[in-house]
């Protein structure tokens, strides 16, 4: 079982690095090539969500991403924002997406969650065990070579 852990300050520029690392480890773990675009997008969405929450709450704590490849490829993205921040994780219906009264943040959050739910079959969003924060856990199958 190999585990890779990446921690980064909550800056948008680091989300790209997280995507690159997440896909590189996925490829090494044996995730099917045709799933890698979805892995890249999902990791990007989870990390974007974490970075955005830290910035909204003025938190300088590091965002953590853990990748493991025991029986499957599991990615956990952990933030430290107050747990109520996760309440807004709902998919928006089409007629509300371009509504004038919908804020940009609410739109991006709703669309981001739709992408996570759409691209990750095995997705869990739950409070972290210690202190404030949320863990987004995503699992993909691997093919052993």
């Amino acid at each position, binding site marked *: 079982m190999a585990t890779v852990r990446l921690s980064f300050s909550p800056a*948008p*520029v680091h*989300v*790209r690095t997280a*995507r690159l690392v997440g896909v590189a480890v996925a490829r090494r773990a044996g995730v099917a090539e045709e799933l890698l*675009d979805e892995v*890249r*997008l999902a990791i*990007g*969405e989870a990390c*974007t969500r974490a*970075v*955005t929450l830290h910035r909204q709450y003025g938190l300088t704590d590091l965002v953590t991403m853990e990748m493991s490849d025991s029986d499957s490829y599991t990615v956990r993205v952990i933030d430290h924002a107050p747990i109520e921040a996760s309440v807004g994780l709902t998919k*928006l*219906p*089409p007629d509300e*997406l*371009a509504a*004038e009264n919908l804020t*940009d943040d609410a*739109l*991006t*959050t709703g*669309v*981001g969650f*739709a*992408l996570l739910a*759409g*691209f990750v079959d095995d997705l869990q969003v739950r409070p972290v065990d210690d202190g404030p924060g949320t863990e987004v856990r995503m699992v993909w199958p691997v093919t052993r070579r």
Partner: protein
Amino acid sequence: MELSLTTRTVAEHTVLEVGGEVDVYTAPRLRERLIELVDAGARDVVVDLERVDFLDSTGLGVLVGALKRLRTAHGTFGLVCAKEPLLKIFRITALDQVFPIFPTVDAATERDGSGPTS
């Protein structure tokens, strides 16, 4: 790949060609450019996504913002996209029901009534 933004005029439409990655880091530049175009008087705007190789929720949010801005200004807004991975993103988010999406710039800039709508 870095974000690239190039503007040209096709059949009285302002076509913004976007290339590279549109994400939480680069999307603010795309938002600024779209606001500049509308502020400068562009009313029929087409965003060409053919050279985009990554698009996330932040980028989608910027595109919705441009659609709303042009709707308020009584303009039109359309997207050019024929790449299946990107089209899947629009379907999953239901934004394919919000944006007029065309396979080519020519299709998006036609003036026969099938072009972009507000």
